């Protein structure tokens, strides 16, 4: 049981890493809300929030403060315990996924080696899938326990959307796994550093994965579960105060994590393209930090694309959404998988 044997330094290292990652997730999620408003404004020739602090940089803090001090309403006929459990689950499942993502190159200095990854398990990407599939419960429990038929309908809408889009997501991923031959996130990145990014070999797979990521994060054009204006605000209709904040926040954290997953799976993780950065002879600390910064740059780019899409493309109708998922994306990803499998077989013969 070497994994669970008590090693104080090991635990300290991991706890620090977890704390940093959670802090980072919160920070990024906070400023994604700000970026969302800013970019939305820019795309519409407006200026966006600029009153709180320089360039409106304190706007997320103000929003957070507002949410904290709002009155907390728990509907009388709701199921109290589950009503509180729902947002908590949404938040937890959003945060757990970050454990298996390699956030940067390992810090290697002589004998000490610190991986910038909480757990480099063999199941890496499968764990992400497991957690994502459990993430449905946050929505369903929240929607059901509100005891409101609109919340319930939105929750069911959201849950069936997430369940159906998990399939093409997994299938498009299999093509990637066929190329790397490992589910370990660190090995997937290492493979890309050696053989070039997966986006070059799997453009179709990436597009499918990206569309599914949009659907999993409930982002436009797939934001039916929470269409604010026309579908009654979705599963968190009865929520107020910080519980609502948790739901909204969890969505942004999901966005952040799925951007990180996409960057890791298809865009080489912390790799800088075209150059061999390990030959630059940087100090180990600088090297790790640089790789982390590179990953963050990719993540921020994806976050921008998420926002950009939201303010460009209109929402799907529900039947269109299901059609796209089941009748287009799944066959496409199956074809993609078959072609990849055949090519891998042929090339490795």
């Amino acid at each position: 049981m070497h994994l669970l044997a008590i090693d104080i330094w090991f635990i300290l290292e991991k706890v620090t890493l977890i704390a940093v990652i959670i802090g980072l997730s919160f920070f990024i999620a906070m400023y994604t809300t700000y970026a969302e408003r800013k970019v939305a404004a820019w795309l519409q020739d407006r200026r966006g929030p600029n009153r709180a602090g320089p360039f409106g940089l304190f706007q997320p803090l103000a929003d957070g403060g507002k949410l904290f001090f709002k009155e907390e309403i728990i509907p009388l006929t709701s199921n109290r315990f589950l009503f509180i459990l729902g947002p908590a689950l949404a938040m937890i499942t959003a945060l757990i996924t970050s454990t298996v993502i390699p956030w940067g190159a390992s810090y290697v200095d002589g004998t000490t080696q610190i991986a910038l990854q909480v757990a480099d398990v063999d199941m890496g990407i499968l764990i992400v899938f497991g957690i994502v599939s459990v993430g449905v419960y946050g929505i369903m429990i929240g929607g059901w326990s509100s005891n409101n038929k609109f919340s319930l309908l939105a929750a069911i809408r959201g849950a069936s959307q997430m369940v159906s889009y998990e399939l093409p997501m997994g299938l498009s991923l299999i093509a990637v796994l066929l190329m790397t031959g490992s589910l370990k996130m660190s090995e997937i990145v290492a493979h890309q550093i050696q053989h070039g990014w997966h986006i070059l070999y799997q453009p179709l797979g990436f597009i499918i994965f990206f569309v599914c990521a949009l659907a999993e994060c409930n982002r436009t054009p797939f934001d039916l579960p929470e269409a604010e204006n026309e579908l009654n605000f979705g599963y968190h209709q009865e929520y107020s105060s910080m519980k609502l904040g948790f739901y909204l926040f969890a969505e942004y954290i999901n966005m952040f994590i799925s951007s990180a997953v996409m960057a890791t799976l298809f865009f080489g993780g912390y790799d800088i393209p075209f150059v061999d950065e390990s030959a630059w002879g940087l100090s180990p600390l600088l090297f790790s930090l640089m790789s982390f910064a590179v990953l963050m740059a990719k993540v921020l780019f994806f976050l921008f694309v998420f926002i950009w899409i939201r303010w460009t493309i209109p929402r799907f109708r529900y039947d269109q959404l299901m059609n796209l998922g089941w009748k287009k994306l799944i066959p496409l990803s199956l074809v993609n998988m078959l072609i990849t499998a055949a090519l891998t077989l042929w090339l490795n013969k």
Partner: protein
Amino acid sequence: MNITPYIFWFLSVMALFSALMMVTSRNPVYSVLWLISTFFAISGHYILLNAQFLAVVNIIVYAGAIMVLFLFVIMLMNLNRETEPQKNRWLKLIGALAGGCLLLVMVAALKDAELQSQQAMVGTGSIGLIKVLGKELFTRYVVPFEISSLLFLSAMVGAAVIGKKEPAQTLKS
């Protein structure tokens, strides 16, 4: 100092407690949630046994897909505490007794079995890893694997056929 036994006991208690709550809670939604908790405990056991693949698959398949289906059905039927059909008290007692007897008999029978001294390998061992399992699955067990895919297909078709509304009842939408 080894924390494995503590984790084992924690997970076992969690599994048993959740299972009991699953059976005894009146509200079907609660039952589903308790069952999910049981599945998580069992997944924890799998991780403890280093059966990583099964642990994750257990979560994806059971917690992520099957229980979502259950929850769906229960929510759509709007089942709750009030509509829950109850057996009469004697039947319940007898059922519980019968289950208890089963447990008793099995425990009594297995108490002195010669497995007593055997140990299950905990924490190490590579047979639970996906590489090993996959190799075995696609070589020695490839026929059952393909058959199971056929089974899936037929289940899918079956569910679609059964779940489809009668043409007379279909609402034009």
